[in-house]
């Protein structure tokens, strides 16, 4: 069993939730999202973010607008759609429940 792969698989499930959560605080450019994730040690490479944003956008959870930039090509600034907000609410609740359950089991195992 490849431990790194297992960790990546586990992270994958929560990355989308985190992107939505970060965007719930307002419009953001991908680099801003990466910064927040890096601080939380969640995302290692930027290349991971772009496919996720595209999928979330295609699923109707995100939308973007083009903003001119002085340091290169125009940038995409992303925001949550109403569907995205609903999705985030449900997913955060589900994540918290799951977290409590898993903690309970892990704690029981480590204490025994």
């Amino acid at each position: 069993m490849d431990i790194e792969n297992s960790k990546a698989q586990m992270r994958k499930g929560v990355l989308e939730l985190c992107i939505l959560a970060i965007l719930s605080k307002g419009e953001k450019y991908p680099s801003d999202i990466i910064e927040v994730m890096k601080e939380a040690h969640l995302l290692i490479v930027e290349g991971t973010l772009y496919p996720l944003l595209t999928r979330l956008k295609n699923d109707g959870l995100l939308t973007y607008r083009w903003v001119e930039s002085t340091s290169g090509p125009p940038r995409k600034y992303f925001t949550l759609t109403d569907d995205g907000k609903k999705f985030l609410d449900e997913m955060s609740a589900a994540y918290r429940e799951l977290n409590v359950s898993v903690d309970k089991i892990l704690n029981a195992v480590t204490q025994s």
Partner: protein
Amino acid sequence: MKKTININLAGQPFIIDEQAFDILHHYFEALKQKFTNESEQKEILSDIEARVAEVFTQRIGKTRSVVNEEDVVYIISLMGRPEDIAGETESPAAGQETKSTTSFSTTYTGPAEKKFFRDPDNKKVGGVISGLCHYFGWATRPGYV
């Protein structure tokens, strides 16, 4: 003294060292193979391309005008090699047709085998630029050197 090549990244012109170009080209090819879902591939790659253009612009600054190998190595480390991205993007969102992204692995092996050919049929500068257009999957707009 090094040869340089003119390229277009997300609508921005860049002059890049030949060797650096080779690495960057292979990198984009590897990414293209990685993102096999056609409806997403174009958008993901153009987002990445735009980011590469932005980082190059910032790195070059006002002191030099040519993108070098260091810049390309830097952007690849920032963006991640295709295999670094793999673990997190392999499975498409639920409900989508699953392409065989897991049945083969795309390994970025650095600058290697692919040869760059001039295109004598559409030449401006000895066919170098139009050769580039063929060889790039990107919307390479030939500029004047």
